[in-house]
């Protein structure tokens, strides 16, 4: 039952006691009238058509549906994917050319790690590949429990829960808590899986300007005034702020300390999506909470995928047991989907081991990020969007041609030019029509610890050349 319905009931009972006698009599008559209507001959509006069978047949004959999908032209720029032959690791073969990888989110270079592979192999020897069932029905393996425990320990939270698909993690977590009638305050730049989670929750969504705390506070204040008008209703409407730690669409950092202040001031819960910042930010790679020194218990739910820094598959949520445990029966992507193949869970455990043993790797990554950010400055015609700390930057056109298609073509030409010169880049892809706020077209530049000084210089040089040549 939605939260809103309970207070309606309470209010109704109270109103009943307060109402004057004539009002009750009037209501009584109305109820009698309704009962009369209920027992009179029923008809459905839709079915009360005067069409004869023949006319109906004609209508059915006449109806022409739209084609299932619109036709796609064969040379659509995004239709023919770049083909990667062999592993998508530091040296990657794209469309037959060996390149240095500046495109996969393999921040810590764990995709290629022998240790991770060995652990995955030994797991494969023990468990086979698939799990053949959801967690509830013999799909829980001991390695899943181990991984959950390890993640909780790593993040220093009470509990963690794993999903078998990164995208499904936050998209399932949001609707597990936020229901119809609840209010969610969301950053405009929030990633697509957050948007889908919000849509699935059917809650009331209020977008605030990207990283603009004043705008958020304005919305919170508006809500406070609204609440004062109807305090009984306010008591049951849950409120959430949903933000990303490091935005995948803009490469910006969220102002977490301010968010926490707002959280306590307006009593709103914070959900934090850390797919880009987990295993990247902070001294031990714990993400944006560690980066800002925010107490992790102040964040109600943290979600991240294990597909970037951990270079495995799947995602996890962590936080206090009071919050997280609820997903075990209410997280759709958790309950109704087959569980994560055990070899992928084992790989993630080994990746965590490596991260714990050598926290120095995060410093290395940070230095490389700063280096790349600096090296890309001053590229003619292109601007770098994002924090110097962000491992996945966006290169946007300084001057748009005015048409998205043309912009994309120009950027694609730069990507192709780099591919020719053994630097693998990619365009950031979006669903143009479905994105709530469509980010400007951009090239994604991803930093990993495996990239050497020279490689970074070479890449920056290559992009500069391309920009000069193509953007003129």
């Amino acid at each position, binding site marked *: 039952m939605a939260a809103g319905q309970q207070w309606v009931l309470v209010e109704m009972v109270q109103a009943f006691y307060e109402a004057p006698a004539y009002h009750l009599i009037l209501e009584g008559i109305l109820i009698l009238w309704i009962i009369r209507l209920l027992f009179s001959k029923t008809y459905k509006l839709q079915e009360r058509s005067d069409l004869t069978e023949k006319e109906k047949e004609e209508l059915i004959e006449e109806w022409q*549906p739209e084609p299932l*999908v619109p036709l*796609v032209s064969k040379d659509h720029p995004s239709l023919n994917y770049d083909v990667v032959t062999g592993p998508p690791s530091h040296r990657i073969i794209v469309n037959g050319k060996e390149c240095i990888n500046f495109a996969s989110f393999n921040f810590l270079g764990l995709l290629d790690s022998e240790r991770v592979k060995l652990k995955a192999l030994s797991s494969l020897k023990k468990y*086979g590949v698939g799990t053949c069932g959801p967690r509830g029905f*013999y799909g829980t*393996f001991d390695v899943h429990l181990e991984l959950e425990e390890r993640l909780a320990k790593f993040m220093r939270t009470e509990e963690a829960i794993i999903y078998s698909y990164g995208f499904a993690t936050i998209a399932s977590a949001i609707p597990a808590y936020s229901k119809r009638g609840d209010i969610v305050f969301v950053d405009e730049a929030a990633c697509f899986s957050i948007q889908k989670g919000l849509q699935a929750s059917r809650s009331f969504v209020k977008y605030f300007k990207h990283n603009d705390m004043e705008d958020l506070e304005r919305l919170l204040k508006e809500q406070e005034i609204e609440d004062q008008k109807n305090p009984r209703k306010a008591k049951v409407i849950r409120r959430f702020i949903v933000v990303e730690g490091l935005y995948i669409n803009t490469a910006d950092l969220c102002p977490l300390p301010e968010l926490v202040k707002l959280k306590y001031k307006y009593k709103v819960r914070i959900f934090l999506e850390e797919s880009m910042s987990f295993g990247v930010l902070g001294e031990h790679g714990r993400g944006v909470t560690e980066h800002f020194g925010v107490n992790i218990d102040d964040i109600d739910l943290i979600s991240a995928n294990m597909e970037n820094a951990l270079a495995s*598959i799947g995602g996890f949520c962590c936080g206090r047991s009071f*919050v997280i445990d609820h997903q075990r029966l209410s997280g759709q992507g958790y309950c*109704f989907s087959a569980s994560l193949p055990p070899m992928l869970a084992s790989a993630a455990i080994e990746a965590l081991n490596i991260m714990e043993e050598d926290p120095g790797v995060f410093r290395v990554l940070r230095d490389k990020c700063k280096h790349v950010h600096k090296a890309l400055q001053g590229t003619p015609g292109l601007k770098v969007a994002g924090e110097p700390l962000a491992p996945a930057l966006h290169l946007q056109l300084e001057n748009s041609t005015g048409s998205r298609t043309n912009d994309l073509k120009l950027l694609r030409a730069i990507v192709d030019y780099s591919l020719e010169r053994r630097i693998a880049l990619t365009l950031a892809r979006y*669903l143009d029509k479905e994105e709530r706020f469509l980010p400007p077209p951009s090239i994604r530049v991803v930093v990993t610890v495996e990239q050497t000084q020279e490689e970074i210089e070479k890449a920056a040089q290559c992009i500069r050349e391309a920009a000069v040549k193509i953007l003129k």
Partner: protein
Amino acid sequence: RSFPNQSSLTQRELHFDRELAKHRITAWSVCIFTSYSSFPPQNHHASCTLLYKKPFVESFEETPLLVAVLTYMGYGILTIFGYLRDFLRDWKFEKCHLAREREEQKDFVPLYQDFENFYTRNLYMRIRDNWNRPICSVPGAKMDLVERVTPDYNWTFEHTGNVLKDVINMGSYNYLGFAENTGTCADAASECTVKYGVGVSSTRQEIGNLDKHEELEKLVAGFLGVESSMAFGMGFATNSMNIPALTGKGCLILSDELNHASLVLGARLSGSTIRVFKHNNMQSLEKLLRDAIVHGQPRTHRPWKKILILVEGIYSMEGSIVRLPEVIALKKKYEAYLYLDEAHSIGALGPRGRGVVDYFGLDPSDVDIMMGTFTKSFGAAGGYIGGKKELIDYLRLHSHSAIHATSMSPPITQQIITSMKCIMGEDGTTLGQERLCQLSENTTYFRRRLHEMGFIIYGNNDSPVVPLMLYMPAKIGSVSRFMLKRNIGTVVVGFPATPIIESRARFCVSAAHTREMLDKALNAISEVGDLLQLKYSRKNRHGSEGTDCFSFLESHQD
């Protein structure tokens, strides 16, 4: 779903097309189901019979009235005790094990309403030990379970360190027995791990489109007999992230009432209007189709842009098989599109293991969108969509999954490729074909024996998913525990996954089960059945309805 009435069986044929009624042929289709029928029985003669090449026998025996009454009483008693326990917890007479909100956030709006978790707290918690049992081996025909004990009535579990060895696995969806840690599939997956690693760290559209993925997609298209296909990393997401790419505002989705959560979610996310038809009931579907076309969209009365029918091949909680020949005829007649989810049926049905289309001997091009998963029969993970080239091209551009989700792990991809080739016989052996035969043999045997023992089992005679009705909430936990004592792992399901009075145990037959294992399981089920009085079926006990059913079939054949 209507409350069961006293007439024990309703037998009826589903009418289909007047044209077909003229033909007199011996093929027939019979459907015996009662608890789903609220439409008045209509007996149009021998109409849909032409569409079926072999008997289509599906039974949903009526819940006996006494059992239904007792079941409701059971829930009543549990609820009363639940309130009592809640009262005791509130007044601190009973220790409360629930995790609590932290002090700092006590004045926030509560994250959960108290009544929301009533069921979990007071009913589920009593029998929680029957789910999420951790396993520590291959989920094959036999598995090893981690032994758990609970010091506080299922609020927490501790592992004792012991392992329950060689538990016969009747729960995993391992239809063809490809959940293996040795053999060609495991070897190929190992090799692939060494070469590729386990992750991809990018999306298909960006830089995560591996040669392995393309190889898989070509193979899947060939396997299904369609022009093209696309693979995705998670079965659930294949539905929920692709349906929104296909329909939108102004489109109508007609969905079977028992469709999986992922289809429901996908339909909701698409923003289309959703109407639900009775489970596998073609009259209900046809009525919705006719009304939709005749009346158009509500209020505006504009014609619908397109109509999409969502059905599953095998329904995993009912064991029923979709009446695909009739659905296809309907969709052709009314020019709707058909989305077929073969999560459980791909690999598990049909003489060549190509799913429900193969089972009925139909043309795959009659199904617009062929969806399925790799989790079950192939012992891997993920899902696919197959269909015309235009459809797949469109999805490559517009699927949420292709653009925003990490692509499939290479060793998982390899497992699917190898197992699929084995089923197709492309590995040069007949091992795949043998598995298919074994599965169908096991299914027939297992279902027949359970039926003979007098249990009420739901679903189609050919479906490897076998739900056995328990009804009463108290029996859910005891069946699972008694079976585990006899070293057999079973799945039990209750509300909300099933209607409140239709709690059931579910067995998934596998090609990996030997006759010996099945016999052992059957004996255990029979023993537990006697102990808990689960042999509800009146067909067997009196013999009357049973013979009725078959004499009906025989008379019809003449």
